[in-house]
């Protein structure tokens, strides 16, 4: 599983929110990112390695449920403005962890203002079965 991370601030910049403190994206920036992501996904689909990919909406729309004094309490938008959280993921079925890492590393080439320094991508192997998690 390849996990791409981003913060609420990154989403605000993409949405052109006034006063988000980061360079606002232009239409051309979006078009370039869209072209990159489509080519990236198409290559993975054509090589047969792509199982599934999804992008997530801004962390502001997240809800957190936790137990407080034995009762579930729901919090809207639980993350701090600059906290890096999951922004999108790819599940790939490929030869090795090294190959998955190679695929994930390409995401650092995604175009966008101020994107290269901030991009954080994680790779985590998916457990194949319950046996891998239990003794």
């Amino acid at each position, binding site marked *: 599983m390849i996990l791409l991370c981003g913060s609420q601030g990154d989403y605000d910049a993409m*949405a*052109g*929110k006034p006063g988000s403190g980061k360079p606002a994206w232009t*239409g051309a920036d979006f*078009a370039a990112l869209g072209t990159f992501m*489509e080519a990236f996904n198409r290559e993975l689909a054509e090589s047969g390695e792509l199982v599934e990919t999804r992008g997530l*909406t*801004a962390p502001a729309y997240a809800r957190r449920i936790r137990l407080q004094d034995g009762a579930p309490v729901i919090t809207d938008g639980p993350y701090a403005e600059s906290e890096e959280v999951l922004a999108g993921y790819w599940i790939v079925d490929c030869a090795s962890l090294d190959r998955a890492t190679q695929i994930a590393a390409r995401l650092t080439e995604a175009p966008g203002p101020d994107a290269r320094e901030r991009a954080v991508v994680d790779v985590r192997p998916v457990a194949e079965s319950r046996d891998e998690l239990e003794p």
Partner: protein
Amino acid sequence: MPTPVVEDLLRALAPQVLAALVRRYGHFDLAEDAVQEALLAAATRWPHDGDPDNPRAWLITVAARRLTDLLRAEQARRGREQATAALMPAGDWITPADDARRLDDADDTLILLFLCCHPALSPASQIALTLRAVGGLSTGEIARAFLVPEATMTRRITRAKQAIADSGAPFAPPTASERGLRLAVVRHVLYLIFTEGYAAAAGVGLLRPDLCAEAMRLTRLLHRLLPNETETAGLLALMLLTDARRPARTGPHGELIPMAEQDRSRWDLAAISEGVALITATLRRRQPGPFQLQAAIAAVHDEAASAETTDWPQILALYELLREASDNPVIALNHAVATAMVHGPRAGLQLLDQLADDTRVATGYRFHAVRAQLLEMAGEPAAARVAYLKAARHTASLPHQRYLHARADRLTPTPVDRRTDCD
């Protein structure tokens, strides 16, 4: 790889072949699988062997053979054999298409549409099954159209077919008393397919098949089969008149352009003249309904040479009729906009205030976006700016957020405006 000609032919024949099989044998679920396999066989063999003399008969023969196999396999598994004997040899009932037969084909396609839009199914299932069984799209294509994994769509379609089997619905047209309601469901499903495609047109995803074109093709088919149904004609006209604006609806980078700012020279004139002619002829029959009224509104917009010359009083009159016929929150908002264009922004804002208690309306981003637009018209930039930002918070769609933020950005607060109540 089938040629486009073969592909078009197969998609036109698919519902007829499926209907013939279901009519003869029942077993909607297995028949559907059998037809898909026959289509696959045709797509791979016809380009090499040449088209058969009677493509429809060829497909029915192959699909019937496959269905026999599938039924045998199923029955073997259940330990029942007797029904196999009831299957007639496929060749016994294939006749070359003549005029009488073609009428049956048309009826079969219609029954198939009714079956796919069966009230026992959820709207999502109705849509998926209609696209698969009547539209002839593959499960993979439908999955991509709705941006869900193929396995999810496979399960959805399988469950839908099972639900039809469980409901015991016969392969027959609905009774006279049900017919009107069932037809309304079919039209609603076609409308949902169209709006899904229209909403997606601005997003990324070159791999998405054109749902608008498919919805229009199926609505055309329904209109041809039942030409006297005025609401079907209205739906087709609405689709034509809405889709006509598509080339002007997005900018070079996929950003949304509101109708007032669209380059009208890019609108599709052929689609507009077909839609206008259709809705004009239909309204003369004096059986108005919501789709016809919406088509009439779209026609008034499409016929205006510029946003400024739009005949708003006529649009307002149509929205007033429409509100009597339909309790739809989007229509209520559009009615407020039309009121503002005719009687001024204050009148529109007053209508919005009356809608503020309706949670279906007031919690959507559209409510705040319309309010912002009317406040801007009323000369209250600070309040408008607040409303635009609020609207942006109520949508998770980045293109919509970008549009609303850009609107807000143009309105910088001034000291005078600070007096305004900005909720």
